[in-house]
């Protein structure tokens, strides 16, 4: 059986989220993405033990987390299980889940952990019916959301690409199954270009998916800057009410304050952080550490500067920190006499917005900057959204198969080998639209081609 994974805590913002991985390779997959601070390899952890460490994927730290390992058969499912407990944000949790999927786990079907627990003898016979209810309810829900998606743009896009693939396959099939008919030969060049088109369509869908997530779940945003530049005023302005305490005293904000704000169509999951500066105050310095961590993990950084003062060395250090991040530079206090200007930041190639948090001016400019930064202008909130990671995984696998097919074609493999990989890709897509490739192709052959005795 394959190794599966899912978020096993409710899909909402909570204190802690748990991502559960179950199956033969659970520990192996956990090892790929989890680095324990103790340096003791995950593969050597014994059952029912925990390790504290960080989840790293693609060289990027996603979150600090706790890993608990259970070894078969002593686990909920009776298989090897690894559970990653991370901080509760939806974005972070999904990132961890994606890291698991990218490392070889399959997204779990509805009720699959429970099903496996039952099949492995972990649940009693009396629970069997409850298990079937769970699976069937989950299945119905998935079906409902799939039906909903049928109306949507995503379904149409996937269907379009799947139809293109069915046409390619039908052409190949007709050519192969009816060699004696005078059908035009399938040309490598046209096949290559069809495959390339399909791959780029799928890439577009996947890219839109990320943007769809932004619409549904918001952008994890950190407001950072040196002390007393007006971060908390900005937070309050975006929220529309006073959430953070605002004073003239540097170091007022010491903890990370989190709140969601709506900016036009976009939801920002804002974190107001302590002003970054050297300090001897223990509490404040912990706040600064948290701010730095937030800065590393957030998807969007709003960096605030006081435009009535010259750039300090702390400002410049901060600019170094954010240079590889999605970032918007705010020149706050535009109501005062400006000593620094947008041009001073041109080398950083980041959008620069002047605003006055105190006078509540410049909110629209910020919204527009975010829209163009995340390329959200062609989207609206109800399109191109995958119901779940499973659907996304299907599209990703389809894309991978097409890339293999393209490669096979380019190194001169025969078309039978190319065909099976294209047809596998097609199966992954049709899994989402509820058809089977083989039948679709056979139907298409007879529809498109005049073949037979």
């Amino acid at each position, binding site marked *: 059986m394959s190794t599966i994974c899912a978020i096993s805590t409710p899909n909402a913002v909570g204190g802690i989220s748990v991502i559960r991985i179950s199956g033969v390779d659970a520990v192996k997959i956990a090892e790929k993405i989890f680095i324990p601070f103790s340096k003791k390899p995950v593969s050597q952890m014994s059952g029912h033990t925990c390790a504290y460490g960080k989840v790293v994927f693609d060289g990027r730290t996603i979150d600090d987390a706790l890993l608990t390992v259970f070894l078969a058969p002593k686990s909920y499912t009776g298989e090897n299980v690894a559970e990653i407990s991370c901080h509760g944000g939806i974005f972070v949790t999904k990132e961890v889940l994606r890291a698991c999927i990218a490392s070889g786990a399959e997204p779990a*079907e509805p009720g699959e952990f429970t099903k496996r627990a039952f099949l492995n003898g972990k649940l009693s016979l009396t629970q069997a019916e409850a298990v079937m*209810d769970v*699976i069937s309810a989950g299945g119905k829900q998935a079906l409902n959301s799939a039906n909903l998606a049928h109306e949507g743009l995503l379904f149409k896009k996937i269907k379009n690409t799947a139809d293109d693939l069915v046409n390619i396959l039908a052409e190949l*099939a007709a050519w192969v199954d009816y060699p004696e008919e005078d059908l035009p030969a399938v040309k490598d060049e046209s096949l290559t270009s069809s495959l390339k088109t399909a791959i780029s369509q799928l890439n577009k869908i996947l890219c839109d998916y990320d943007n769809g997530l932004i619409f549904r779940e918001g952008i994890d945003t950190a407001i950072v800057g040196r002390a007393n530049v007006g971060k908390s005023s900005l937070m309050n302005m975006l929220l529309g009410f006073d959430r953070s305490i605002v004073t003239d005293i540097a170091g007022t904000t010491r903890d990370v304050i989190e709140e969601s704000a709506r900016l036009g169509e976009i939801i920002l999951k804002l974190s107001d952080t302590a002003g970054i500066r050297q300090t001897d105050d223990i509490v404040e310095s912990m706040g600064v550490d948290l701010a730095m961590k937030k800065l590393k993990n957030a998807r969007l950084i709003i960096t605030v500067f006081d435009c009535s003062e010259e750039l300090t060395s702390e400002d410049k250090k901060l600019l170094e920190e954010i240079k590889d991040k999605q970032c918007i530079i705010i020149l706050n206090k535009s109501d005062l006499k400006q000593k620094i200007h947008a041009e001073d930041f041109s080398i950083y190639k980041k959008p620069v917005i002047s605003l006055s948090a105190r006078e509540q001016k410049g909110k629209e400019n910020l919204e527009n900057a975010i829209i163009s930064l995340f390329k959200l202008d062609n989207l609206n909130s109800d399109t191109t959204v995958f119901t779940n990671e499973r659907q996304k995984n299907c599209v990703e696998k389809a894309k991978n198969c097409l890339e293999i097919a393209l490669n096979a074609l380019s*190194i001169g493999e025969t078309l039978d080998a190319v065909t*099976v*990989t294209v047809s596998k890709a097609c199966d992954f897509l049709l899994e989402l639209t509820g058809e089977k490739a083989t039948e679709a192709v056979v139907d298409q052959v007879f529809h498109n081609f005049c073949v037979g005795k």
Partner: protein
Amino acid sequence: MFIENYDIIVVGAGHAGCEAALASARLGAKTALFTLTLDALANMPCNPSIGGTAKGHLVREIDALGGEMGKAADATFIQSRILNRGRGPAVHSLRVQADRTRYHEYMKKAVECCENLDLRQGEIIKILSENGKVTGVQTKIGSMFSARAVIICSGTYLKGKVFVGESSYESGPDAVCPANLLSDSLKELGISLRRFKTGTPARVHRRSINFDKLQKQDGDEDIVPFSFDNHSKLENKISCYIAYTNEKTHEIIKNNIKRSAMYGGQIEGIGPRYCPSIEDKIMRFSDKPRHQLFIEPMGLNTDEYYLQGMSTSLPEDVQIEFLRTIEGLENVEIMRNAYAIEYDCCDPTELLPTLEFKQIQGLFGAGQFNGTSGYEEAAAQGLIAGINAYRKISGKDGLILDRASSYIGTLIDDLVTKGCMDPYRMLTSRSEYRLLLRQDNADQRLTPIGYEVGLISKERYERLLEKVSQIKTEIKRLWNVNISPKEANEYLEKCGTEPLQTGAKLAQIIRRPQCSYEDTDFLDEKRPALSKDVREQVDLSIKYEGYIKIQLEQVEQMRKLERKALPGDLDYSNIRGLRLEAIEKLNKIKPLSVGQASRISGVNPADVSVLLVWLEQNRREINKNKNHP
């Protein structure tokens, strides 16, 4: 009361019936093969050809399992070709033009010589049964024969009706009488029948064809036999020819379309999509300026020629008129006119994967009766039905070939799980495992099964084991032969592929699409002398290793569910958590495994999970009852 007592009776001696009867008799069952006339045994009422894409695969699989069709084709072919050369080994397909009369004679002799097998002329009009179990058959003249299993292979004879233009009459193919009475008996047993339709083109006289104006098509020089057992030298005896229709032809057909039996609405049967009549081709693909036809001899001792591609139900005068517009056929004389034929067949979803009917024990179906089309599809089912009828009466488990084992398994699974809405033809695109199911490795896939079943001799099985071991040893050796850039680069550049930077294994070079085992002989001093078969397998195994590995992983996934057996008498409405649609479909098909259940349209992954949980629950309850009786 019974004239004779048999173990197994086969009704119909076409391609399905002959294989069924030979298999059951060879396995040791006392068998009778009934036919309307001994003179039409193993007749080819349509194209006198065996094999072709996917069909050629079926014939090789039949041979690998111990069937007769491959041997008969090898013995009586007059031209042989491998189709799809250059399109990849998975789709290479062997096709021969057979001598129709000699094929019939060969198969009749094979049946006559077979021990335990009685060949009898007679029309079966009734299947006798008691308590839902087959007991025998009755002929038209009132004779009764007992049997423990009966296999229906009625082909296109069951209530056969021929259509030519406005005229129609009851008949089997080639003017043999139809079997008009059996249908009612089958219906009484609870079997649903429906009408399918097929057609055949005209046969024309050789002297009326102007061959100079036609494109000639010759057979392969180096002939590959169908049978893995055949090592003799084979030769082509004739040429085939290609001609084309033109606008004039199309115009005549269009002008007379209302006179076509199919377009006039006389025919209720559903015709095959894969094999449209010429009027269908012209009406549906009106933008095509010409259609191709093949002109093929019917045998060595006849002047009849077959016009492949010209099947029609237009009246005879129109047939003559449009054929004479074709270059080379200006003076053509028709000997037998083209016609459409309609017949009764069953709904194959009423069959188990063993080809036994669910509603009546001991009754099997095979061939066109099951909704397929084609001699090869028929023979494949006949073989399996014969084996399974024998296993049934011997108290053995049925032989079910899964989709990853063969095209035969794919064909039967498609039929019994999905059913068919029009006559089913095998196509390579129907198999998801086609890189594994090549015609060149049918023996490796199926001969061990044929041996276990009892149709393959020990000698033949041992020859296969020896071949497999030679292949493995040679592949292993090639992964240990080191090649330096200096040795290989001149050759690699000549092939148009990247030169080596560092040393490589010879297998890595052979794996390149541009290179081959045969070509790399010069790099390989210690290469052993191996047969052509073995050399071919070595080359293909190395070349497709990556793809084969991926397909094998898929197979393993599939087989896990295939091994989860479901009881045949299960009432799915009692299983909690299944959706209504799934319950209906599952109760209709009664799948034998969760794997089969998962392929039924309307059964979704959640339903499959529910079935798995139900199975486990059931298993534990049985265990509990065992422990606490």
